[in-house]
């Protein structure tokens, strides 16, 4: 019982554990930095199965004078032996694999969460449907006698009706005399049991320095069978909240925000803590007894469920804290429920905000994705860079229901009141039409692309369902706006539902957009991150990916799944030596890779433009999305407008014919119709200021609006500009046309032009404005790109050229009132 230094893991090894909690690391003995007012005495034995001891502070009960006397009236539902089993046997019975628990949690938080989530959904998606409810956000709330503020950690009841847990002792009893009393207690670093100093044998005078383990644990370690003193009859061994938490009967939560709902009930958003048993790896030998993991899992709960405060600290605070009572926990790592990986919190918080932010971003996005899938309200136009389907792990489900939470920071600001009138008015038909024509809104069905989707589906199924899963490669090309990405994503969605129903083996799906990578090499990084959840530099990622795809699956469980890689805007990955593309397309040819690459790009002959070694790997299977013809466009538009009576039939046909003639771009067709609707809306709102409901309702979007929209989209405005420009510019342009006809050369110099202008001016009775003014005029025209010209500093030698056909100029200037004589020069 002499105070000694305790071995403690060095910093470095802790970082390592953050990454791989499952590996037992060599323990480097290191003297503890702060010697605390804690007791204890022997250096803990280093036997691997025993948990790493910590020092625990002594807890003088006087600190919690409120609940000096825990209720002890209940009959004892927990026999002592039971308790021993739970808290003394190490390792503890693993709780995490118990599938019912997370599910329960999920169910509960979902049921609680539905209301606010719905509310927000509605605000986000269909703004006009419902007036947004008001929520009042608080920093601090007094609730049920306790004061809870943002950032506090609290216990949360796990089951609503756990009757046996009614009593809530804040003070632990002594394990020997089973009274709490005022006397100083000491905590065993191993089993976390409390003992009165005087009850120990031999009694201690004061709390010893360093670690201390109780006699029982020591005896047990040395192999003896020990028995705790039995409690006196009729007296229940009361479990404290801490014990309940550690045996996963309670949860700990970090409050992120508190608000009052419209109905007056208080809610909070919490970030769960996890006990080591709940993590994928289970309790590890290096886990401290009071260690918790902060997860990136959120849920909304009612304040009702909060039990009381607990204190979760980082290691530094934890070493300093000695007298805070029983409810102190250590939290050093963040646990990523999706990747089942650990991360040091200190790194996350203080280091780059970047890291955490992007992490939560991803996760949030992911959550959103899975959530929206569940709701049948899919938004797949959204860029889901990572799109993994990790089968049916409970973590996945958890992530799904906690979707709202990730944006904890903004929540506080988001508490702003939304002006009611803004989004709360009845939609007119045209407004509805506008909403459905938005590119963002997604139709329920995708007309006109059945053949292509079937082909993609067949391709993927073919590639996946074979047991060998040969690597394959598909190149999808077509002009913009023909639904390439949309079709592929639709296929993936269908396939996912098949995965869910069990007819296809699970696979992982990674989507990357070439234009959204900062540089082509970064694709390795992104892929690797999507596959493994770790973030490394691209060189390392390349190395690891090479290893993975060439040497085949390792023992890991996820690695076996085939991987589908969707690369949008593939042409952006072409580097000078084309190594990126080569690598990516080379992987599928490796026998063990199980990689399927789908590339999407605009150019039809991208494989031919590349080096032969790449095109031989890529060009095998191609799928062309031809531009939509006008019938298809018409179908697309009218399928979107189904049930909304806002457009004339000919108007749609006109728009789709026009677009089909130019590009066959569905986006553009939709935009034209939307613009037309907008114009109609604008016209109506401006003209009918005294609101006449009837006239607004029957107003249809007609030909004229569509015509105007098309004009706006396709016609360059240069003619209008030329008509309205100054007299001198008109003369200037006319002189250019004149010069063009005279010489037949499209290019002229300023000197020659100035001569022409002065000729024209003198012969028509205009004053020649001078060379410098003329130069200025020329430069102005050049700025608008009506004229292409060199920089003005070249003055006399400046080269000039018309940017538009000379017919346009003559058309624009022919009937100008200012200078009628210009016509004869055109």
């Amino acid at each position: 019982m002499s105070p000694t230094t305790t071995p403690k893991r060095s910093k470095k090894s802790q970082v390592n554990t953050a990454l791989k909690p499952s590996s037992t690391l060599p323990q480097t003995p290191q003297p503890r930095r702060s010697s605390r007012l804690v007791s204890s005495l022997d250096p803990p034995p280093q036997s691997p199965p025993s948990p790493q001891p910590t020092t625990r502070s002594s807890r003088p009960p006087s600190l919690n004078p409120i609940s000096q006397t825990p209720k002890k009236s209940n009959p004892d539902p927990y026999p002592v032996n039971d308790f021993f089993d739970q808290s003394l046997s190490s390792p503890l019975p693993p709780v995490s694999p118990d599938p019912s628990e997370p599910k329960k949690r999920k169910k509960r938080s979902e049921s609680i969460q539905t209301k606010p989530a719905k509310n927000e959904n509605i605000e986000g998606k269909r703004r006009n449907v419902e007036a947004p409810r008001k929520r009042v956000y608080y920093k601090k709330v007094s609730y049920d006698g306790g004061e809870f503020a943002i950032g506090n950690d609290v216990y949360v009841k796990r089951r609503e009706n756990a009757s046996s847990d009614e009593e809530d002792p804040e003070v632990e009893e002594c394990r020997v005399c089973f009274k709490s009393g005022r006397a100083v207690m000491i905590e065993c670093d191993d089993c976390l049991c409390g003992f009165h100093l005087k009850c120990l044998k031999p009694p201690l005078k004061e709390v010893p320095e360093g670690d201390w383990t109780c006699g029982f644990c020591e005896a047990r370690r040395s192999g003896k069978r020990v028995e705790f003193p039995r409690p006196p009859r009729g007296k229940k061994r009361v479990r404290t909240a801490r014990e309940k938490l550690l045996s996963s009967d309670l949860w700990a939560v970090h409050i992120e925000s508190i608000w009052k709902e419209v109905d007056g009930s208080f809610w909070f958003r919490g970030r769960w803590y996890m006990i080591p048993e709940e993590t994928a790896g289970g309790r590890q030998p290096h886990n401290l007894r009071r260690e918790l993991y902060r997860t990136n899992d959120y849920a909304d709960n009612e304040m009702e469920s909060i039990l009381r405060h607990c204190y979760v600290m980082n290691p530094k605070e934890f070493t300093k804290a000695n007298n805070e009572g029983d409810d102190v926990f250590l939290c050093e790592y963040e646990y990523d429920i999706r990747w089942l990986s650990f991360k040091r919190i200190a790194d996350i918080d203080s280091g780059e905000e970047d890291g955490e932010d992007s992490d939560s971003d991803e996760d949030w996005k992911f959550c959103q994705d899975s959530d929206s899938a569940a709701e049948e309200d899919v938004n797949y136009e959204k860029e889901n860079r990572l799109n993994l389907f990790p089968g049916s792990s409970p973590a996945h489900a958890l992530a799904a229901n906690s979707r709202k939470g990730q944006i904890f920071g903004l929540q506080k600001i988001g508490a702003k009141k939304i002006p009611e009138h803004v989004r709360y008015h009845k939609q007119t038909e045209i407004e509805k039409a506008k909403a459905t024509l938005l590119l963002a809104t997604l139709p329920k069905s995708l007309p006109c692309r059945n053949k292509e989707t079937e082909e993609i589906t067949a391709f993927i199924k073919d590639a996946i369902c074979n047991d060998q899963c040969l690597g394959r490669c598909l190149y999808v090309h077509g002009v913009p706006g023909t639904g390439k990405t949309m079709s592929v994503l639709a296929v993936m969605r269908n396939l996912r539902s098949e995965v869910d129903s069990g007819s296809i083996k699970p696979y992982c799906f990674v989507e990357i957009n070439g234009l959204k990578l900062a540089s082509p090499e970064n694709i390795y990084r992104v892929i690797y991150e999507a596959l493994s959840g770790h973030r490394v530099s691209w060189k390392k990622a390349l190395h690891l990916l090479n290893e993975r795809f060439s040497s085949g699956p390792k023992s890991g469980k996820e690695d076996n799944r085939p991987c589908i890689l969707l690369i949008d805007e593939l042409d952006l990955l072409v580097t000078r030596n084309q190594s990126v593309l080569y690598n990516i397309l080379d992987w599928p040819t490796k026998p063990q890779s199980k990689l399927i690459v789908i590339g999407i790009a605009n150019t039809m002959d991208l494989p031919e433009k590349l080096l032969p070694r790449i095109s031989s790997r890529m060009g095998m299977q191609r799928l062309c999305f031809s531009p939509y013809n006008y019938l298809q466009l018409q179908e697309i538009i009218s399928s979107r407008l189904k049930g909304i009576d806002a457009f004339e039939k000919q108007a749609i046909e006109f728009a789709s014919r026009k677009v089909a003639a130019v590009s066959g771009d569905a986006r553009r067709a939709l935009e034209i119709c939307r613009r037309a609707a907008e114009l109609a809306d604008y016209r109506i709102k401006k003209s009918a200021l005294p609101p006449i409901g009837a006239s607004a309702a029957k107003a249809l979007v007609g030909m004229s609006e569509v015509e105007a929209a098309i004009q706006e989209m396709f016609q360059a405005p240069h003619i209008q500009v030329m008509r309205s420009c100054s007299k001198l510019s008109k003369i200037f342009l006319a002189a250019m046309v004149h010069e063009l006809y005279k010489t037949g050369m499209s290019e002229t110099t300023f000197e020659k032009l100035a001569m022409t202008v002065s000729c024209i001016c003198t012969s028509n009775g205009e004053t020649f404005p001078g060379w410098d003014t003329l130069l200025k005029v020329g430069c102005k025209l050049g700025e608008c790109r009506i004229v292409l010209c060199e920089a003005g500093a070249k003055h006399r030698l400046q080269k000039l050229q018309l940017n538009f056909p000379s017919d346009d100029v003559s058309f624009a200037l022919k009937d100008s009132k200012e200078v009628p004589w210009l016509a004869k020069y055109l």
Partner: protein
Amino acid sequence: MERQNSAEEALILLRIRLCTPNFIFSLSSDSPDSNYSKLKFILSSSVVEACNNSVLLLGPRGCGKIAVLELVLEDLFKEFPDMITVIKLNGLLHNDDNCAIKASLSPCRNFIKLILVPYAVFLFVDEIARQLCVEHELIFSKMASFDDNSQFMVAMLHAYTYLPYLITRECGLAHKTVIFVLDEFDLFTQGKQRLLYSLLDAMQSVTSQAAVVGISCRLDADQLLEKRVRSRFSHRKLLFLPPSKEDLQRLLKQILLLPSDSTLPQDYIVEFNARLLNILAGERFKDIMDKLSCSDPTINNLLRFSAVCFMDLKSGFISLENFKAALSSIQRQPKLECLKDCSILELYILVCMKRLEVKEQESYNFNAVMKEYRSIHESFQTSDHYSRSVCLRAFEHLLQREVIAFLDNRGHSQSVEFRPVKLLLSPHELYQGLKSYRSCP
């Protein structure tokens, strides 16, 4: 004395008016056909109905594109407080954009750092990347390899993926609409157009609520977009045209008339306005306006014009002479004035160069000019003869004033004498200049 004071006061009032573009454009904003109401309709529909729009404001410089936009944004801020975030980017400001963003975001200080920092970093990095990209494709692609060292580069890697989420976050949670204002839109179209692509692509998602307003004086700005970017661009175009002559005059009247309910003495206002109307109605003033609008009818020009005409205001009233002075100060002929200041020797050199050009000698350097100079000197037997070194100095002086210029930018190593030069004046101008030069032999 009192008159003097009130004149000063009136001057201040008018100058304030002239310097705040909002005042001028608010005069003409009410009609339904105006760009103001159209733009306002588009942007407010993006706020209210979550229609994500992208608009291009096109038109020659000085037509008030930005001023109208500012006006609209101001109105929207009033109408929907706390719902709009404006992010302004200028294609010309490359590195300083960081500052510009911070400045533009400062009104919404309640943004937590978490949001602000990535934004700033994103823009900063993007600017660097783009600028490098414009100058050198190679540097840009190489830059990614430095990422291990620099925090910025790490941020850049995520910059493009950040953007959609940031927008989404803001819209979904703060219920805000982000309006991106891209000034000098044409400059954003250089390079691979990543910024535009990710912006426009992000706007296609359900949850985000944003509008992109591009401002450019290039009429073909939307043709500069890449195909896939253009397909995502929702082609709203607003054309800003210079006003007609009548509109200009009406506008000028509105600007210059003093309001009757100001603090100025009433009789002064009445007299001032009466005189002004008199001038504006006069025939000679119409001539001045004609001349002005003949070369450049934009509003900006008008403002500059009328701002200048207050330069001498002793009597307390605007006179026709003031307008005339203003016009002549706007329409200057820098080259001719430049010729007036030349020394005789410089004129000699210019004349020599002109003679060489008349002889259809395509390129010539200082030595050739010197030879010509000597031949003139011999044939005309003029009294003044300068040494070669003096001539060289005069020659260099002309070069500096950009009356003459080197033919090409290559060959910096060569000395001045041997590089081919070119006359930047036309013979016509030279002739005019010589005529107006009094002491020319």
